[in-house]
């Protein structure tokens, strides 16, 4: 039903977080964060552990409420949009999906149709089409009957992405989706995400992977955005020293002249002044 509406929507400025803050247990997790991923791009979300990446993604997905600030979808707040309508637009892939339920690959991908169906309705042809397309796009068409519990970590993440695609989202939020994967599967998964026709926001630890696959990167530290731009603009030796407190050599030797990071051994970098005024978008 919202498919027709999509054409008539106000110029889609997509999913935006505006000055979002959140506290937990007296600690500030997000401190006035604004992000506006340009529609259709893949945006990397970088930053050390505890910098607020996961919380930001959960707030943007509407799973957590923002303490202050708003998250909007094409100009309307998530609360106005409604939970089900948000789930038809924004899909989430976590770093590690766990279940004890005995599910097949097809069962998991079908979960993505839940926001599109009413309580008592049976699955229609458009549901089956969306599921089949999601399976095909993730290369899982011939694995539909396989049990979730027999899959490897990389395959499970691919199934979760298929489930997310079955939601037919225009925004896809991924929280360190490559965390538990070997290098081959990390590359494969991010290549898949970057090629999808959606706006993707991916929290990542690996700066080289971010440089390789993201159109833009946003760097967070202590709950704030401290830098944003293309990988070449943002991923620099100074920024790495400042945000991660480690020494590194950055050369333009990545694919297409993108930055390539090599870390140097030795003591951590101390005592740099904060550079919060360099704040990004």
């Amino acid at each position: 039903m919202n498919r027709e509406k999509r054409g008539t929507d106000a110029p889609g400025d997509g999913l935006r977080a505006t000055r979002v803050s959140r506290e937990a247990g007296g600690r500030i997790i997000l401190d006035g964060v604004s992000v506006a991923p340009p529609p259709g791009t893949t945006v990397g979300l970088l930053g050390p552990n505890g910098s607020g990446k996961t919380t930001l993604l959960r707030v943007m997905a509407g799973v957590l409420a923002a303490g202050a600030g708003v998250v909007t979808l094409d100009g309307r707040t998530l609360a106005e949009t409604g939970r089900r309508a948000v789930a038809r637009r924004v899909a989430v892939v976590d770093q590690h999906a766990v279940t004890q339920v005995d599910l097949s690959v097809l069962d998991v991908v079908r979960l993505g149709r839940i926001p599109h169906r009413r309580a008592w309705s049976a699955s229609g042809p458009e549901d089956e089409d969306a599921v089949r397309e999601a399976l095909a796009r993730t290369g899982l068409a011939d694995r539909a009957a396989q049990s979730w519990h027999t899959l490897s970590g990389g395959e499970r993440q691919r199934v979760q992405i298929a489930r997310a695609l079955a939601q037919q989202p225009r925004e896809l939020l991924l929280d360190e989706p490559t965390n538990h994967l070997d290098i081959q599967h990390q590359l494969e998964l991010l290549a898949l995400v970057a090629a999808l026709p959606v706006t993707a926001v991916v929290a990542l630890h690996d700066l080289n992977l971010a440089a390789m696959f993201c159109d833009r990167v946003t760097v967070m530290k202590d709950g704030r955005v401290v830098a944003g731009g293309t990988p070449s603009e943002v991923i620099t030796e100074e920024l790495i020293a400042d945000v991660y407190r480690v020494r590194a050599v950055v050369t333009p030797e990545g694919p297409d002249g993108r930055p390539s990071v090599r870390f140097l051994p030795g003591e951590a970098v101390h005592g740099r002044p904060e550079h919060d005024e360099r704040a990004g978008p």
Partner: protein
Amino acid sequence: MTRTDHTPDVRAEPPPPAPTAAGARILRDGLLWSAGVALLLLSVAVAVTIGPARISVPDVWSAVASHLGLGEGRLTPIRDGIIWNLRMPRTLLAAVCGAGLAVCGTVMQSLLRNPLADPFVLGVSSGASTGAVVVVVLGVGGGAVSISGGAFIGALCSFALVLLLSHTLGGSTDRVVLSGVAAMQLFSALTSFVVMTAADAEQTRGVLFWLLGSLSGVGWSDVWMCSAVLAVTLLTCLGHARTLDAFAFGRDAAASLGVHVARTRIVLLCTTALLTAALVSSAGAIGFVGLVLPHAARALTGSGHRRLLPVTALAGAVFLVWVDTLARTVLDPQEVPVGVVTSLIGVPAFVLVLHRTRRST
């Protein structure tokens, strides 16, 4: 890009064309359900014939037909009374209890993401017992609160306690079960305390028998009350079938699929507590039915709740009809409380499920 860069999997079969697959599934579900309903009707009919007084299946049909106004009764009043007033309500209540407990178990297991959840293991049945005993023995509420009302309040209290305890303890599978054990012990102790201090000998005997879970001496009013609550619960849960599916990967995953997590949990947990309370106030705390049957039913239908819930209910009904028949005949003329038999069957199954969860995590 990914379509070409994967080596074909040797185990893979070509994907079946979707329309015929859906058709075959509907056909298979239809067959499964009709077989289940037929089996249940047959089980009830046969179970009613078993007992000290010799009665045949045609006798049962005849008695039922005459009471439904479909024919002349050809039975003596005594035989008719045995069928219609003693064995029929008891057998039907066994079916309703079995179905209800199995549905409660299924919903609790899915919502709490815990394969060991069941009204008995989580102490909800004990809470309901305490509530009922307080009303019966102490006369709390002065007749304004019925036994079922007391049971419902007790069930909600113990459920709330278990959820609170397990939440503060971290919420893992083991913690939820341990919180259930704590609640069960607490409420059993409260029940014993009330019975020992306030009840007379006659009441004590009755209460203890009922606490073990027993279907003896139930009447039609129990059947109607429990059937009505079962119908409401089953419809509510079927209406939330897809929502229950969404909980497979946890609460956040469900929320990101558009589910109102808190609202769903409150509605469904209260509904299952209500059903547990109704069943406990009629038949006592019959254990482990809700634990075992959902696992058996999942093996038949897979984990989608739309298909799972009706099959679980049918399986639970057939199961408890036969277990109750066993309980009242095995030591004839002595009767074993049905809860004793379900526990004897259920505890090994509990261990089996526990073993499987340990392996899978």
